[in-house]
């Protein structure tokens, strides 16, 4: 347990010292907020059922953060650590492999939440965004979405031969999701035909759930989202556990 806590704390500190990782989790969503906020503002819009574009963007960009962490940060860092022999060094200690993974998941979850809090603080400061849901439900949606995206991240990390390849694969998967899942821009502005593709992207379900929980909708209205994410956690997480490589 002491190992788990210390490893999580140390990894968290490292994350903050890594300028690129910190930029994508913290600065990038903030930049999106400022950019799209200056274009659309936060006036109530019939397209979003009377909510403003920035209100809707809060859960969307939260989805963006968890996509970035899961599909870029985790694969690049994990594959890099494997390539350099950092994982080997940890393996030479009595720490159980599961402890390492748990600490890594925890670190990334923490990072996602910190990024999200920063985003929400800016959204509130600049556009007085409204949160209409329950904090616990929203956090539960964040955790569920994270675990699903992170599983995919660990699979990419293990299948890619090195950090560079992990980055390429992560980006190839991430970019369509950025534009088509509703994370980067509201799904409502996409044409109907494009939205069909969205249905195949796992991040779409995470974003959809986050939006629901942001506006205080019932979990029962989002059973499909929860089911897709849960299946992903079990299946993709299972694959990740099978294919995980220390060296």
């Amino acid at each position: 347990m002491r190992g788990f806590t210390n490893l999580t704390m140390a990894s968290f500190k490292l994350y903050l010292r890594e300028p690129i990782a910190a930029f994508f989790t913290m600065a990038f969503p903030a930049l999106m907020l400022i950019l799209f906020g200056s274009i659309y503002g936060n006036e109530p819009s019939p397209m979003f059922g009377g909510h403003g574009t920035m209100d809707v963007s809060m859960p969307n960009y939260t989805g963006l953060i968890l996509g970035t962490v899961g599909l870029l940060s985790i694969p690049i860092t994990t594959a890099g650590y494997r390539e350099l022999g950092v994982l080997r060094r940890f393996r030479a200690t009595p720490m159980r492999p599961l402890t390492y993974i748990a600490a890594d998941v925890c670190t990334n979850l923490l990072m996602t939440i910190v990024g999200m809090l920063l985003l929400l603080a800016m959204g509130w400061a600049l556009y007085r965004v409204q949160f209409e849901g329950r904090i616990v439900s929203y956090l539960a949606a964040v955790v569920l979405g994270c675990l699903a995206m992170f599983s995919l991240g660990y699979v990419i990390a293990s299948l890619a031969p090195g950090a560079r390849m992990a980055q390429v694969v992560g980006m190839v998967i991430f970019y369509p999701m950025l534009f088509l899942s509703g994370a980067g821009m509201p799904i409502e502005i996409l044409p109907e035909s494009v939205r069909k593709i969205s249905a195949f992207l796992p991040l779409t379900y995470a974003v959809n759930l986050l939006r629901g929980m942001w506006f205080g909708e019932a979990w029962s209205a989002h059973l499909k989202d929860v089911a897709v994410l849960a299946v992903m956690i079990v299946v993709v997480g299972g694959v990740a556990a099978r294919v995980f490589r220390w060296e």
Partner: protein
Amino acid sequence: MSIVVEVEGLHKAYGPVRAVDGVSFTVEQGEVFGMVGPNGAGKTTTIECVEGLRRADAGRVQVLGLDPRSDRQALAERIGIQLQQASLPARLRVGEALTLFGSLYQKTSSPRDLVERLGLSDKWSAPVAKLSGGQRQRLFIALALVNQPELVFLDELTTGLDPQARRSMWDLVREVRQQGRTVLLTTHFMEEAERLCDRVAILDHGKIVALDRPEALVRSLGVESRIVFTVAGDARDLPLASLAGVQRVEASGERVIVHGSGDQFVSRVVSALEANRIAFRDLRTEQPTLEDVFLSLTGREMRE
């Protein structure tokens, strides 16, 4: 003397390549045991099987009375490992690394004492990426010692270090031994093995071709030593060739090289010179090294 490591009939193949092909040896408590041989001889594979990081295809390995695979956790608490290829996150600081790794063990040394002992005190807050090769290696030794291990593994400890850093690593190993810890190391520097190890196993193509104390290895093979000196005047016709133990005398001008072997080789030559009142100067002896042993065992030079 109790036995700390016992390896019997170890085999490990990577595809068609037999990396380790029937290796057996034991390491006794408190000794520095070295595995030497060229790159690809099977040293690292062997040591990693003993550490429990690699699964052997066949053979029996026991370390501190434990099975390295099935008792990995328990064994990992009691051993220290310096890996040939390993690294730490670039932005992790020295002090943080030691504190973190210390927290993964039940028994630990104080990180401050460790950096002190390893001469890294002023690097406590330095990120790993900013360390020199020698400092990095010290840090990895510190990590290997953080749990006060009974047995320490050092895999290619000084590869890539400059001669000065290498010497200071040797001092460290001697210190570790003085603390009563057993050391199992691999190296492809014969000189390193000769200076550090109580016993040496020479590996080639996955097999142990010789195993003994370094001096004994050198002596047992009857590899010749050389005595080199200078005489005033003509060096030909010195009455040395007929001495017991002398194999060959080379003379060119004032310079003489006597080839021979045996315990009394040097003293015989020197007394013969004195008995014949031949003045000599700049005498030095060139002892055969493990390098010569390897050459005579395998017919090949050790290449670095």
